[in-house]
């Protein structure tokens, strides 16, 4: 166990966990966008920045990737933290002015759009956190999407921006995206995502269209469960 102080509260935490985890375990809230409990943290959005004091030195760190250390004092609401958080939020607002999630979060933190940061209108709602790519790679296991290019032109998508032949239409990427960037439309017997349209399977009990055919085939192939057994939706099973 490691002893530390967060916002004046004495805390014991398991070695190796992050400051964010330790704070949350103790009911201390730190705003985040790109951290997800089922995925390795990447420290992409910087919103979870906090101030760490060791001896008489202090520094700003990203709490979702900084692990707990013996004897440190962590401040999640100091003036310095508030200033940094405000700046990060202002920049996010300028990059993704159309993301409801970001607009709401900014409002919650009392941050307004700044004239000095010209808003972008070509980035959609994407903050380039890589959560969707990691989900597709490590949880779904197909790697249909990735980043391309770099710097100001970096975007997320399928290779060559073409219909992916490995995508199974599961929609996990759209589900995990913190800002609602990924468009997925399900209407009756079809679902469209990343420019490709999938046929949906109807539940063989209730008749509701519940999953893309390709997804069920993929699960069947991976698990060895016959396709027929998978063709019943979760509510009818």
């Amino acid at each position, binding site marked *: 166990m490691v002893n530390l102080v967060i916002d004046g509260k004495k805390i014991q935490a398991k070695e190796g966990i992050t400051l964010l985890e330790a704070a949350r375990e103790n009911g201390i809230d730190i705003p985040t966008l790109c951290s997800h409990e089922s995925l390795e943290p990447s420290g992409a959005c910087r919103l979870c920045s906090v101030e760490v004091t060791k001896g008489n030195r202090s520094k700003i760190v990203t709490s979702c990737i900084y692990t707990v250390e013996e004897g440190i004092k962590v401040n999640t609401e100091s003036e310095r933290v508030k200033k940094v958080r405000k700046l990060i939020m202002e920049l996010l607002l300028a990059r993704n002015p159309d993301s409801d999630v970001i607009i709401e979060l900014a409002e919650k933190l009392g941050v307004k759009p700044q004239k000095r940061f010209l808003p972008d209108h070509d980035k959609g709602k994407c903050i380039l956190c890589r959560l969707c790519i990691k989900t597709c790679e490590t949880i779904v296991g*197909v*790697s*249909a999407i*990735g*980043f*391309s*290019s770099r710097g100001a032109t970096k975007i997320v998508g399928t*290779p060559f921006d073409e219909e992916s032949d*490995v995508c199974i239409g599961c929609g996990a990427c759209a589900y995990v995206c913190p800002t609602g960037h990924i468009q997925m439309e399900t209407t009756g017997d079809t679902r469209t995502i990343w420019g490709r349209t999938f046929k949906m399977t109807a539940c063989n009990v209730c008749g509701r269209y519940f999953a893309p055919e390709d997804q069920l085939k993929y699960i069947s192939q991976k698990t060895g469960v016959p396709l027929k057994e998978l063709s019943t939706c979760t509510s009818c099973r």
Partner: protein
Amino acid sequence: MNTQKITKNKIKGIIGRHEAEKTSLIAILQDMQNEFRYLPKEALVAVGKHLDMPLARVYEVATFYNAFSLKPRGRYLVEVCAGTACHVKGGFNLLAKLERELKIECGQTTKDGTFTLEQVRCLGCCSLAPVVRIDNDIHAYLTQDKIPRILKKYRK
């Protein structure tokens, strides 16, 4: 260097020269770029298969580095340095002159496939500024009036 015809065998040959390990990726892509003057889609697909790496990962790397091109490049790559020293010494005038001479814009390839015009950041020889690199030749202290003669040499 001539633009090579893309064949399955050539792709296989290049890939075969490298170990089937993730760390070979960039080296393979470099060899492909040298051979074909760009990275054809089928080559990227083949590399992915060989290294057991998803196409999305290969594509990330291929689009990340400026040294790689996904569009066919001309026989000669003309790179105008836009680093600080070359910029201060008027590199942008050289670019404008090249655009006029080649009748293309930066990033494009001439119709006959001879030249591709691109801009790069600092070629690492600032004391020779302003410079233009054509294939692997550095043209130092370049002025606009020297450009037509230089281009003629490559056209032959």
